[in-house]
C-alpha cells in the first residue's frame, strides 16, 4: 500500500464512519465501491486492528478488591461531608468541608508563618527552621491564632515590638489571605480566592497538612 493511500483523508473518513455505522446511503455505496481496491481494503484492515487492540485494552479484568476498597473510601468521604454542611468547596477539592476548612486554616497559617519567617526575618539566626515552624503553627488551633502567633513572632524576630505597626508587605499578605486586622484581632473577610489557594498549593503545604492529619488520625 502506498503512502498516498495511507493518508487519503476522505477515504479514512468514510472508513471510520462506516465502522461506526454513521454513513448515509450514498456514502455507504461510495465506500463499498472503494473497498474493492487493495489499498482501501488494507486500510480497512488496519482500522479493524486498531479497534480490536483498543477493545483488548478494556478486557483486562478489573481489580474487584480494589474497587470495593475504593467504594468504602467513598462512603467515608461522603460521611465526612454530611457531618458538615456541603458546599461547592467539598466537590471542588474532594475534601470534606470539615477537613478542608481545617486544612485551609492550617495551610494559610503555615503559609503566613513561612512567608513571615523567610521574608521578614533579618537573617539565618532570626529564621525558624521549617520543622520548628511546623511545630509551632501546628500547635495553634485556628488560622487566626496561627496568623497572630506568626505576626508577633516575626516582629519579635525582626527586632520590632509586638505592638509596632505592621509593614506594608505584611498587611498586603494578610489581606491577600482573606483577613483584616481590626482592633488587634484578625477578622475573616471571606474565603480566599482560588489564586490564593493556588499559592498555598504551590507551597506544597496542603501535602504537609494532609500528612499531619493522617499522622494525627493514625
Amino acid at each position: 500500500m502506498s503512502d498516498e493511500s495511507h493518508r487519503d483523508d476522505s477515504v479514512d473518513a468514510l472508513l471510520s464512519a462506516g465502522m461506526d455505522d454513521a454513513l448515509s446511503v450514498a456514502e455507504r455505496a461510495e465506500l463499498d465501491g472503494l473497498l474493492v481496491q487493495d489499498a482501501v481494503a488494507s486500510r480497512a484492515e488496519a482500522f479493524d486492528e486498531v479497534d480490536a487492540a483498543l477493545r483488548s485494552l478494556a478486557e483486562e479484568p478489573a481489580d474487584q478488591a480494589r474497587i470495593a476498597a475504593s467504594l468504602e473510601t467513598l462512603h467515608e468521604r461522603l460521611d465526612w461531608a454530611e457531618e458538615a454542611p456541603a458546599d461547592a468547596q467539598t466537590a471542588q477539592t474532594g475534601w470534606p468541608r470539615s477537613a478542608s476548612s481545617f486544612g485551609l486554616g492550617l495551610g494559610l497559617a503555615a503559609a503566613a508563618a513561612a512567608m513571615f519567617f523567610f521574608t521578614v526575618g533579618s537573617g539565618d539566626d532570626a529564621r525558624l527552621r521549617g520543622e520548628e515552624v511546623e511545630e509551632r503553627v501546628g500547635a495553634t488551633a485556628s488560622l487566626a491564632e496561627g496568623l497572630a502567633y506568626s505576626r508577633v513572632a516575626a516582629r519579635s524576630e525582626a527586632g520590632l515590638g509586638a505592638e509596632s505597626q505592621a509593614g506594608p508587605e505584611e498587611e498586603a499578605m494578610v489581606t491577600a489571605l482573606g483577613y483584616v486586622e481590626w482592633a488587634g484581632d484578625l477578622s475573616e473577610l471571606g474565603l480566599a480566592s482560588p489564586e490564593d489557594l493556588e499559592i498555598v498549593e504551590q507551597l506544597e503545604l496542603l501535602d504537609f497538612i494532609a500528612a499531619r492529619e493522617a499522622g494525627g488520625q493514625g
Partner: protein
Amino acid sequence: MQPVDPDIQLMLAFREGDGDALSALYERWAAPLLRYLERIVKNRATAEELLQDTFIRVHGARDRYSAEARFSTWLFRIGRNLALNELDRARNRSPHFTTDAPASSALYSSSASSAATRKVVSLVSPLPSQDEEVDARRSQSRIHEALGELPERQRSALWLAIVEGYSYAEVATVLETSTASVKSLVHRARAQLADQIQAEDETSIVPVAAAKTRKTLEAES
C-alpha cells in the same frame, strides 16, 4: 414499550434516598470510568481519586438529576471535566507538563518495558503455543503507547466510541461538542493509530520473517 435504563432507575432511587443505589451505580461504573480516567490523566492513583470525586459530584447533584440522557454519559462528562481540571492544576504546578505526552506513570512504563521485553523474546525464541498471545500483547502495548500520544479530545472520542460503544451523539454529550466534531475526532484518531501500526508492521517485516525462518528450521531439525 422501551426498556427502562437500569442506571436511571438506580439514580432515581438514589435521588429518593436509597443510599444503596449509589453503591450499586459505583459497582457498575467504577471499572469503565476508572479505565477512561486513566487514559486522560495517565496515572492510576490520580484516576482513582478522580473516580471518587466524580461520585461525590453525583452525590451532591442528585437533587438536580434529570433522566434525560444516559446516566453514564453524564457520569463520564463529570469525570472528564474533573480530570481536565486536574491536568490544568498539574500544568500550573509544572509549566513543562503536557497532557498529551506519552504515558509516563510507573504502571505504564512497567507494562511498556515488559511488553518490549516480550517483543524481543518473541523474535528470538517464539514458542508456537505462545505466538498468538505474544502478538496480542505486542499489539496491545503499541496501541497503548500510540493512544497516549493522541491529543486528549481525539483520545477521549476514540475511547468512548470504540471501547464504551457510545454513539457519536453520546460522545458529543460527554465532550460537550457537536456530533460532526466527534466524527472528525474519531476518524483522525483512528487514522493516526492505523498509520503507526502500519509503519511498525513495515519496519518489523524483516526481523519477523527471520524469526519465522528460524522457527521453521528448528521445527524441521
